């Protein structure tokens, strides 16, 4: 059997999802045996920029023409495109720009020079090209990445949980930070898969994996407001890793 050809790419992000691939220290050398990695700039200076790929993984969001060009070029040469991490799948932290005046932010951070750089409002990959599958997480969970690779090798598309972080929290018999401590915990709105990492340590979930299917933002917002948080604070919190439904540039 010929090994599937894969590529790892990054547009604008923190490299955390690509790093978490390299963080699979115990599996990395096996992974290299099972798939034929044709491009992984963060790890190798040898890359094959032409060959047709079976699977391309892309980390990061699109905030420039350059990013858009990269994403479109990768789409053209791959059978399957996987959005790697929350930025790629939902837009991530950079899409917080929808709550601000981006021109003013550019001026604030770069001064007049800000007007000359190739930059634009942040977008998720599926706003630019067709994405076949997304792995959420900021960063991705290593076990989910490895399971996804195993599924893809068997010709299946991986499955994501359809329930929120709260379900994992209940399973772990954690104390409920929202119900018992009045914390602004986004567990009810956030897609599971991290084993309720934060609430298990006593930290409120800030939604880093993005929205769960069927997440009801409006009723959650009403609940948080009834607990004493302002509307603005609730909206900012809910929009930290993925734009709220209907939020435009």
């Amino acid at each position: 059997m010929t090994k599937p050809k894969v590529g790892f790419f990054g547009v604008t992000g923190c490299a955390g999802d690509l790093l978490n691939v390299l963080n699979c220290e115990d599996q990395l050398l096996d992974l290299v045996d099972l798939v034929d990695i044709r491009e992984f700039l963060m790890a190798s200076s040898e890359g094959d920029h032409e060959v047709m790929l079976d699977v391309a993984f892309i980390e990061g969001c699109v905030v420039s023409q350059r990013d858009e060009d990269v994403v479109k070029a990768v789409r053209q040469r791959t059978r399957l495109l996987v959005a790697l991490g929350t930025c790629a799948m939902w837009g991530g932290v950079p899409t917080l720009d929808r709550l601000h005046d981006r021109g003013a932010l550019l001026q604030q951070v770069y001064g007049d020079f800000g007007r000359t750089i190739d930059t634009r409002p942040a977008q998720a990959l599926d706003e630019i090209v067709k994405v076949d599958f997304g792995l959420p997480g900021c960063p991705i969970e290593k076990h989910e990445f490895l399971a996804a690779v195993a599924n893809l090798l068997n010709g299946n598309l991986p499955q994501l949980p359809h329930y929120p972080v709260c379900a994992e929290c209940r399973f772990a018999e954690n104390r409920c930070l929202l119900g018992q401590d009045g914390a602004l915990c986004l567990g009810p709105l956030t897609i599971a898969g991290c084993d309720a990492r934060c609430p298990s340590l006593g930290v409120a979930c800030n939604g880093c994996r993005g929205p769960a299917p069927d997440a009801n933002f409006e009723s959650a917002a009403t609940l948080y407001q009834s607990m004493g948080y302002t509307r603005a604070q609730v909206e900012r919190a809910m929009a930290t890793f993925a734009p709220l439904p209907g939020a435009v540039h």
Partner: protein
Amino acid sequence: MSTRIVVDHLARVEGHGGITVELDGRQVQAVRFDVFEGARLIEGLIGGRHWTEVAQIVSRICSICSSSHALTSIKATEAAFGLMVSPQTLRLRDLLNRGENIESHALHLFLLAAPDYLEYPSAIHLAADNPDAVKLGLRLKRLGNSIQEVIGGRCIHPVNCVVGGFASMPTTDRLLQLRQDLLQGVADAQAAVAIVAGLPPVSCGRVDTIFAALDPGATYGYYDGDQIVVRSARGDTRVAAADYRSLTAESTVAHSHAKHSSWQGSPFMTGALARVTIHGHLLDEGSARVRARLGLGVPTGDPLQNNLAQAVELEYDIRYTLALVEQLLQDGLRPEPPLRPQVRAGHGTGVTEPPRGLLVHSYTYDAQGFIREADIITPTAMNAAMLERHMRGAVAVSDPENEPELKRRLEMVARAYDPCISCSVHLVRL
């Protein structure tokens, strides 16, 4: 005749950047380190955010130094509110920082830099001929990650370190496991030093260098301290953390989203080599032997020596961390809920030493504890101007006709700085 040497897209670094050199015969016209990373404007995006949310958002600036970004942010917020944390918290933060330093140095030395010296395109290719070296590097890297997982709750973008302390204490079981891993790590670190010492020498030139590092007090480390020491041929100057701007008089440069820093008009270098140069006397006997074995003499104007300085720190930090974990096991960890600050309007600045050098977070809060303004200056931004000088130095000792060799040297210099490009673009207002 003028020629242009271009490294389009630098591989084996974190983020997207390139190198351009313009030559007129042997005369260097221009050397540029270009940053292509998109503008995420993170300091702007935390405007209006509550003090409880800030560290988690800013850690997303960079994955490799995410523990440092979170801790530096927390340090700045605690300074703004005048909150003093417990000695136990300081120990755990020290441990988290060392975990990051171990992971980052192991990643850099074995997966990113070593392939250069041995002329392989990647550690994956290197593993085909020398699997043991690569496996060793991966084990050391995993050790750094395990420390961050046990203390920080996640090896990238840690969640357990918060303003006022830690949300949860690591369990004794996990500390015992960590101790086991560290014992193996001590042996691995010796083997790592032997490998680094055996790398074939490459010369990329020497340039007089000014160094800057945080004064960690009595113990060689990365978290504590609020004074920066600048060492030049004229001697040492101390700069208080709150006056960091005198060290980073920045200017935006047209070819890059990054801004260049300088101290009294001169570029400077920060990172492992700067730390060992300025604070090497705080290291112990064991480190002195490692330095001798590696042939690291400081001060030096050779940028590749930064790789050796990383190896010195890697070896020291593993032994230090083992002792610290044993101490924690002996003393036991008290349950200690994070301290709540007295929220008030004000400024706070935090400076720490991530793997790549000085990192500054400086915040202004309003009376309700929401961010009004934020400045973040990263080591890669501080290093950018000096990196260009060192690349000029590499051109000076190279044959301009031999383009592959010249490119290799330029890349090795850039990689020796271990640039973290996602970091470099999030810079202060002018």
